[in-house]
């Protein structure tokens, strides 16, 4: 058993729902107890979908368990087909129904419905949301593109000279982090390169579209967590090469353009020669000097976390002090990225472990999911959201991609604004210390000074402290050291206090003197 406060990923059947909801003409019948219908609200409330997800549930109850739950499944499947008349159906079980072993796949087959029925076995007790989405997409792609596969070993014919190059875009789906906008942005890039989009899947694709996947020259995988498995199969089956670069950030977008141009046999230079993003110039603008060496902690799905770390380090001049992901399937890629920054990778889906890591690393900026946003809020650290799990805020009304050149602009604002707001907070506090303001005001994180109440720092509305500090073990301050600390500009005072205490604690110093303070300063200066 794993003790879980908050989860990064939903169960795997929710991943399957995300794929079903992204497609057209596909309906998913789930053998599930009534509570499992909660998942509908993810689509209607978080994504503000105007349609219910195309999912029906058997909603069995205790009294059905004594009777015939297989009959209930069969009836639900038949009724659902009659009512919605989909072009294809997915069938499967959620965690509880998996235990009943009613065999939805076999039951569906025996009903002889006049449309293809694809059974999903998602191992609810081992697997999670992204795996469920990837498996579902893979099963669908095999089911519909499979019949059009050439005999094994057939060499792919060269594209006719008068045909524009064509690709598929794989991975975007419902409840994805900015997927809709990314598709728009990437399609724009492809258009400028003269590459046509054959099929986008699953977002907006019908079973007939999936059947045409083999017609493209190559595949673009935007979200490996969802589409890698399907793309691998397409590569093996149709000889379609797959892109490796995910175009998040300037460097990655340029590499992506180059990679696509190569696969398509077109010239990337005209597009690369244009200045299409403000990020490089804004990062070089003198007002960005203060961003230099900002310590940043990055956590998210592997794709977004690796991309954010690269942007932070190479495009904004931050120090990446922590990098992690909850996507165990992509742990290898993340480890490789962490090695580049000389840091320990964090592969975990235990929220408490990640919280402890953030507290330990004292970053100045947290780039993470909604969970890390809360961790950062509690610890009083500026933060920005870079990855799913999604929240209603991750579906902004405005155009807001992460990918391509416009995505880089969005990301500059996303990463830098929280730091600017942090600076503004400091300036406000600085003016508050002017004689026009109340004298007793103290800086955030410096509540103990003079024994007077501090203004409410951001972390005060948080619940009891976690691993961040432990007042019992904290060393005490000699009077002179405390006075010296007070001479340090308030906006670094909180950090100076924390660093000195940490320094003293690690060395078993129980009383902090002026000497300890300057020893710590020398130790931490960089």
């Amino acid at each position, binding site marked *: *058993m*794993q*003790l*879980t*406060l*908050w*989860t990064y*990923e*939903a*169960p795997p*059947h*929710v991943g399957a729902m995300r794929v079903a909801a992204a497609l057209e003409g596909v309906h998913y019948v789930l053998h599930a*107890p*009534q*509570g*499992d*219908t*909660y*998942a*509908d*609200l*993810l*689509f*209607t*409330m978080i994504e*503000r*979908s*105007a*349609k*219910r997800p195309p999912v*029906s*549930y*058997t*909603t*069995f*109850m*205790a009294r*059905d*368990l004594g009777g015939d739950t297989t009959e209930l499944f069969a009836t*639900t499947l038949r*009724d659902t087909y009659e*009512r919605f008349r989909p072009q294809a159906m997915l069938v499967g079980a*959620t*965690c*509880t129904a998996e*235990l*009943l072993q009613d065999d939805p796949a076999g039951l569906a087959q025996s009903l002889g419905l006049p449309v293809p029925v694809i059974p999903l076995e998602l*191992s*609810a*007790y*081992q697997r*999670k949301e992204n795996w469920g989405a990837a498996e579902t997409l893979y099963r669908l792609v095999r089911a519909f593109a499979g019949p059009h596969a050439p005999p094994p070993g057939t060499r792919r014919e060269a594209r006719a000279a008068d045909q524009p190059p064509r690709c598929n875009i794989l991975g975007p789906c419902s409840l994805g982090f900015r997927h809709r906008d990314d598709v728009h942005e990437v399609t724009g890039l492809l258009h400028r390169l003269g590459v046509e989009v054959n099929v986008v899947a699953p977002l907006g694709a019908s079973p007939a579209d999936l059947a045409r996947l083999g017609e493209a020259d190559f595949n673009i995988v935007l979200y490996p967590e969802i589409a890698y498995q399907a793309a691998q199969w397409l590569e093996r089956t149709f000889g379609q090469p797959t892109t490796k670069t995910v175009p998040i950030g300037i460097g990655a977008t340029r590499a992506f353009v180059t990679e696509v141009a190569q696969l398509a046999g077109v010239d990337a230079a005209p597009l690369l020669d244009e200045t299409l993003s403000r990020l490089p110039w804004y990062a070089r603008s003198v007002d960005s000097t203060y961003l230099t060496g900002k310590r940043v902690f990055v956590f998210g799905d592997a794709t977004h976390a690796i991309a954010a770390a690269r942007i932070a380090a190479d495009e904004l001049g931050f120090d990446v002090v922590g990098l992690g992901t909850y996507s165990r399937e992509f742990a290898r890629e993340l480890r490789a990225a962490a090695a580049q920054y000389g840091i320990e990778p964090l592969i975990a889906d235990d929220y408490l472990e990640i919280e402890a890591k953030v507290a330990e690393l004292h970053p100045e900026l947290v780039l993470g999911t*909604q*969970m890390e946003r*809360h961790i950062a*809020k509690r610890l009083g650290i500026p933060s920005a959201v870079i990855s799913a799990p999604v929240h209603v805020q991750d579906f902004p009304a405005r155009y807001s991609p992460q990918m391509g050149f416009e995505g880089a602009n969005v990301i500059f604002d996303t990463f830098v604004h929280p730091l600017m707001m942090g600076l503004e907070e400091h300036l406000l506090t600085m003016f508050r210390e002017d004689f026009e303001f109340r004298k007793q005001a103290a800086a955030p994180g410096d509540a103990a000074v003079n024994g007077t109440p501090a203004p409410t720092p951001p972390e005060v509305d*948080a*619940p*009891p402290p*976690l691993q961040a500090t432990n007042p019992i073990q904290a060393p005490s301050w000699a009077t002179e050291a405390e006075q010296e600390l007070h001479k340090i500009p308030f906006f670094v005072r909180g950090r100076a206090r924390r660093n000195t205490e940490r320094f003293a604690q690690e060395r078993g110093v129980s009383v902090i003197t002026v000497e300890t303070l300057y020893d710590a300063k020398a130790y931490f200066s960089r």
Partner: protein
Amino acid sequence: MSRGNGLAGPDLDCAGVAPSSARGQHASFCGLAGIVWLHRKIQDAFFLVIGSRTCAHLLQSAAGVMIFAEPRFATAVIEARDLAGLADIDAEIDQAVARVIERRPDIRLLFLVGSCPSEVIRVDLALAAERLSRLFAPRVRVLSYSGSGIDTTFTQGEDACLASLVPSLPAEAPDAESSLLVVGTLAEIVEDQFRRLFTELGVEHVRFFPPRGASDLPAVGARTKFLLAQPFLTETARALQARGAARLAAPFPLGVEGTTAWASAAAQAFAVDPQRLRSVLAARTERAQEALARHRERLAGKRIFFFPDSQLEIPIARFLARELAMEIVEVGTPYLNRHHLARELALLPPQTPVIEGQDLERGLDRCRAARPDLTVCGLGLANPLEAEGLTTKWSIELLFTPIQGFEQAADLAQLFARPLLRKARLAA
């Protein structure tokens, strides 16, 4: 429309309303959702669900914005190795509980909450609770109940939780005077209002259940009379009756009429002078009715349809029909306790269609055909119905907003008036 005093006698005639039942797909939370408000109410309690990743995700999705606080609930997620018998489930539960108690030294009461998978694989949580209670006594009491979707719908989770707590209530002292117990989670502000009301009526010993803290459990016994503040507490009422307490039959304290009848039932049971009752209620009812009048203008004659969800549907429909002159198209309720709701059913307009249980698709067909002015439904249906041009009110808000009592009658009306007002305001 007649405005009864709601004080009808016990032998009610509910022939006017004949509930029917439906079976099909449900669209409702399971009982685990109750944890979201119960953990806010009992402030030193922790809820540990023994369940799957789905349970954890459901709680997180239902809790929504409460993610800001470190929650006093968690899920011990059953994994493949637990099912394969590679891990000792009891040992795993013990370990999870120990970790929770270590992390949260402020916890005094811990509920092991059963889920669909724990029920299906028959994890004996009652036994685990006994074992852990002995282990952590006297600091932490460990209890268990089921919030599983195969046993409970949405608010039934609160019922199961409170029922599990009843055996822990201390026994009344032998010389105890008659006391009044108000049963069902209420917002603190509502509790305080009711406390003042009963004090003014001269009812001296008034306690609330669930309490705000685990050390504050009310005593119960033969001289305890209890009033249900919520219509979904079947098992809790049965458990209290088994401890000798007597249920005071009353409509529920929603709206002026409901609250009047509810408070009057207590007044009658405690032999409060009718003159005193009238004078204590007069200012409150007058103020509440004045506040309601503003909403009546917008709501009167409007047609409303209830999808089954919170089990609050029947008392709220009664309030909207009788005090705000709305027309009830259909009242769905996931579960109906005909005994506890007898007085409510009697107050509904004759022939009101009341349907127990759910067949979602057929319900949607009826709703679309009726084109009501307002549809009360769960979060999964609200936006899709809005997109079809129907105006909706989400039912979960009825559990998170203080709606009981005189002072909240207008707030309750406003929850229904606001979507209509909003629709009227939006030009584009």
